[in-house]
């Protein structure tokens, strides 16, 4: 590891030319004091989000593992329980989320083009679709309550032999969709922030970067649903046992 064998600095982002900054201050108002350049800052923020999404993947991974193991152990009750989910509502929600991902992608794109109108329109669309998802989810949940499909003492299942497996399925169902819904709510909160900020921004690189970062989060939440939908609603549909 002598100095010469090592090539130039790796992809470390140390922005501007060194030493041009005698006071250690810069004039750029959008730049936090500890960054050398806006590019470095945006890159850092986005890397931060990707790393955060990695933690999110592992977070959902834990409950997905539980689901996988239990489904393997009791396939029949799980399939039976899964039949009690409302495919129409689930499908509708899937579509809502995919469309919202599209509008989110456009919001990011229009922000990059500094098209305020397009940006705001698409962002608002995204938020409406996201809210729509939650509203649908609300109806799905309340239906589960009225049908005594919520785990706990009130849980009822006609086929006693499968009651345990079914209750377990619904435990996992609520856990997984509940966590997903909480992520949606957080996402909507984040979008609200960039919506408000977007009304008077001049779209500096930092803001565009922030929009893109929030977009990453939103798409991630969509991806989670892309998996939850088949896992919870669809697997075992063709099987008519119990």
């Amino acid at each position, binding site marked *: *590891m*002598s100095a010469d064998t090592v090539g130039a600095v790796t992809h470390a982002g140390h922005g501007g030319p060194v030493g041009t900054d005698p006071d250690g201050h810069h004039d750029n108002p959008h730049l936090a004091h500890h960054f050398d350049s806006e590019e470095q800052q945006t890159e850092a923020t986005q890397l931060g989000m990707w790393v955060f999404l990695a933690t999110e993947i592992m977070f959902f991974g834990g409950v997905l593992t539980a689901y996988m193991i239990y489904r393997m*152990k*009791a*396939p*029949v*009750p799980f*399939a039976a329980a899964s039949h009690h989910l409302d495919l129409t509502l689930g499908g509708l929600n899937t579509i809502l989320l995919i469309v919202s991902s599209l509008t989110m992608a456009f919001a990011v794109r229009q922000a990059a083009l500094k098209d305020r109108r397009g940006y705001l329109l698409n962002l608002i669309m995204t938020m409406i679709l996201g809210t729509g998802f939650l509203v649908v989810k609300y109806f799905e949940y309340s239906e589960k309550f009225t049908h005594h499909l919520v785990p706990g003492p009130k849980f009822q299942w006609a*086929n*006693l*032999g*499968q*009651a*345990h*497996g079914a209750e377990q399925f619904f435990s996992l169902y609520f856990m997984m969709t509940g966590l997903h819904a909480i992520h949606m709510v957080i996402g909507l909160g984040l979008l609200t922030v960039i919506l408000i900020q977007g009304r008077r921004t001049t779209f500096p690189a930092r803001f565009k970067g922030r929009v893109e970062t929030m977009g990453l989060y939103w798409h991630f939440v969509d991806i989670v649903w892309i998996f939850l939908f088949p896992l919870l609603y669809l697997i075992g549909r063709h*099987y008519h*046992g*119990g």
Partner: protein
Amino acid sequence: MSASNKTLPLFPEQASTNAAMVDELYFFLLALAAFFTLLVAAMVVVFAVKYRRRSPDDRPPRIHGNLQLELVWTVIPLLLSLVTFYWGAKVYFELSRPPDNTMDIWIVGKQWMWKAQHLEGVREINELHVPVGRPIRLTLATEDVIHSFYVPAFRVKMDVVPGRYTTMWFEATKPGRYHLFCAEYCGTKHSGMRGEIVVMEPADYQEWLAGGPKGDLASQGEKLFTELACVTCHQAGPTQRGPALAGLAGKPVQLAGGGSAVADDNYLRESILNPTARVKAGYDPIMPVFQGLVTEEALQALITYIKALPVTPDNVVAPAAAPAAPAAESKGH
């Protein structure tokens, strides 16, 4: 008390065939550890003394490293590790695999006691009497949380996990009384969940057994089989809606929805407590759930009974089933 009365004990008593095996491994590990600890200590001490700073201006030349050395201290530990792994795995396999001719005993752990049930019908609490020189297999269950059945003098330990059976085995070599500990934390009186293993000469053991109640476990199971109305569905006749059970134990079972399972104790347990989790192919999932209706003890009796059912030509489980009844499990000791 079994363990030595010395004030400063350094080594536990060896009282099972496994103990010697584990101890050999222990000495090997100790030697390995001593070697490396002394090696590191020697390096540190020698270098520290030899190269201590002699003047504040010492400026020793730079040494980047040495590939050969790096390889040496990668490869040698690696090889030693593999040897150790192999040895450990071998012992583990021995510990996990009971011999064929075991004597079976059922154990139930609950907060905070151990209950033992001999096939001959005798029951005991916080004590377990076993004959010397006979491999013993324990099938363990718990009524509440996880416990762990631990006999230091035998060097064996097995967790007892709610919802299923686990097994362990040992063969005692010395008559005496040995500690039985619960090794998995299980709540307030975890440290009070202790007992004793009483190892006896076979003749004494028989005598001790004879002092117990009459009626072996399988016949208790038979009674339950009728009381719980299992007979309605599982005995040849007009009401039979479930499969025949004789000769089932140990055989593979085809499951509805694909897949198969071996009808071991855990399968039988699940089939009784929560039958529709895995349904036998060709049958409807109509068997009622018995979870909460049968105690662990009743379950032991039922399973012992099912395993002991005599196989007659008209109640064989599957065409493929071998005629011989499972040897070790059959009743009549």
